């Protein structure tokens, strides 16, 4: 294809700008990785961006993290919560987004208003705790999966996406006698793969990073998710002066451990993203279904 000078110049600047952005975004993660392998003394003294680990390369930070008896169990727990939470979440969110996106569904707008309302108004910790108690969900995985099943923001994104599917497709299917469920499963979903992929990612990440609900609703250590254990490793010995002072040796390691916990917690998630990316290829399905 012929490209004008202007276009070539633009593309060159585009590439350069994107490369710069990529570098700026990579820098802190690279720094974190280097820091996690540094020796604590050198790390504490360091004040700049680390290209390489400060001092000698040490795995001491990681050994402290993995010395925690609960860490592997908590990884498993988190996998369970993420899988369950994501499956349930995407199913219900997509279902809700579908019905609320149908123009012939009269209550849709009112329901959207009421639902958006819940995004902003929240009773707070105490009523939620009491609810979970009364429902008998306390200390169970359901307490982590059910309350967050449908996130309003995700619902809205999916709904917007579903609304974007050409009505003509739906109408021609209806002429052929298709039910709403059929339209949902055979037309809307396949054409919204990108958005579904995005929301799956968002839900999975949300569950992966989640620790606050677990701190409220889970009593058994054996059921703790990863983030709670990591926070425990990070916070222990340094929230208050008395134990922080008594455990001075551990508090000195706090910086190092901070970096290690981020790497431990993030690496698995980063591995998923490339799989999601393939759904972002442009306009794949629409042309295929048409006609």
């Amino acid at each position, binding site marked *: 294809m012929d490209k004008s000078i202007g276009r070539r110049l633009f593309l060159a600047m585009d590439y350069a700008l994107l490369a710069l*952005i990529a570098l700026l975004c990579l820098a802190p*993660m690279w720094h974190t990785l280097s820091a996690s392998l540094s020796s604590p003394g050198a790390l504490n003294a360091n004040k700049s961006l680390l290209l390489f680990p400060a001092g000698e390369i040490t795995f001491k930070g990681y050994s402290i993290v993995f010395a925690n008896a609960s860490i592997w169990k908590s990884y498993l727990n988190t996998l369970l919560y993420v899988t369950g939470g994501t499956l349930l979440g995407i199913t219900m969110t997509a279902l809700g987004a579908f019905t609320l996106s149908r123009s012939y569904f009269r209550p849709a707008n009112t329901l*959207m208003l009421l639902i958006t309302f*819940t*995004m*902003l108004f929240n009773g707070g910790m105490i009523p939620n705790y009491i609810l979970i108690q009364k429902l008998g969900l306390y200390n169970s995985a359901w307490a982590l999966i059910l309350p967050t099943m449908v996130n309003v923001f995700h619902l809205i994104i999916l709904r917007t996406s579903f609304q974007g599917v050409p009505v003509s497709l739906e109408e021609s299917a209806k002429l052929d006698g298709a039910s709403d469920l059929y339209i949902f499963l055979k037309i809307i979903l396949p054409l919204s793969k990108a958005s579904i992929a995005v929301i799956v990612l968002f839900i999975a990440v949300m569950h992966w990073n989640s620790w606050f609900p677990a701190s409220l609703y889970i009593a058994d250590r054996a059921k703790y998710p990863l983030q709670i254990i990591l926070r425990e490793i990070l916070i222990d010995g340094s929230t208050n002066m008395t134990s922080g002072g008594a455990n001075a040796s551990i508090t000195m390691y706090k910086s190092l451990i901070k970096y290690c916990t981020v790497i431990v917690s993030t690496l698995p998630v980063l591995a998923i993203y490339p799989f999601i*990316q393939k759904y972002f290829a442009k306009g794949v399905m629409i042309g295929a279904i048409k006609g």
Partner: protein
Amino acid sequence: MKELVANYKRHKMIYWLTLPVILYFIVFSYLPMAGLVMAFQDFSPRKGFLGSEWVGLTNFVEFFTSSNFIRVTKNTLALSLLDLLFGFPAPIILALLLNEIKGRLFKRTVQTVSYLPYFLSTAIICGLIIDFTGSSGPLTTAIAPLLGKSGNLLGMPEMFRPLFVSTNIWQMVGYNSIIYLAALSRVDTDQYEAARIDGAGYWKQCLHVTIPGISSTIIIMLILNMGHLLTVNFEKVLLLYNSAIYETADVISTYIYRQGILNHDYGYSTAVGLFNSVIGMLLIITANYISRKYSETRLF
């Protein structure tokens, strides 16, 4: 009401398919909302909702008349608006820039790398910021000639907002662009064809096909952002601020936090939260109304 029944009769399945979601919101969102009554009570955990004394608007008045109310509200709004002004377009622009690239590998790499900072904990990002803005930090040294002075940047009130907002963008732009990337992939390729046939160059295509193509996503995101105008990342402010820069850095949530050191007053903090929510909801409704009038997109 009659129309509703008729609508139901014609589209039974849709109603039944919606039911689980409605139930979910009733049980897990609306039921606990009863707890908002705390805002109007002198709440004591011991007495609970039923037993705590009703004080009407006292908590709200207490907040509005607190000595720093104006300052913290102003600061919260300033940070949010700056974030909106610079932080809202940034992911869109990133998505558009990526959209123009043909090189698959480069595109994917940049995409993946750009969303890495999102996964870094606030503590780490703030640790980096503090190191960089220290008296002898790299950033401080670099911009000293521009500023005309040097010294701990986080000790200068005028530096807080630029630092806060720019690092927000740095951390969030990649992750926030994902939604727009997904929206871009949905734009009908046929429309690009049609535009090209009409003789439109790359720039015109972007203006007349791409942006309109994702406009509904942009508008919806903008409306939703309105709801959070009085919310600022509490943890980040807490880690970065200090008493020397309260005049620009102290926000509603950090102020409440400090007030809570003696009190642990759940009623008070609920009242402030409720106030935030009400303002946010009003803004969303307003934004939605404007959007309904001037575009085809509406949230409700």
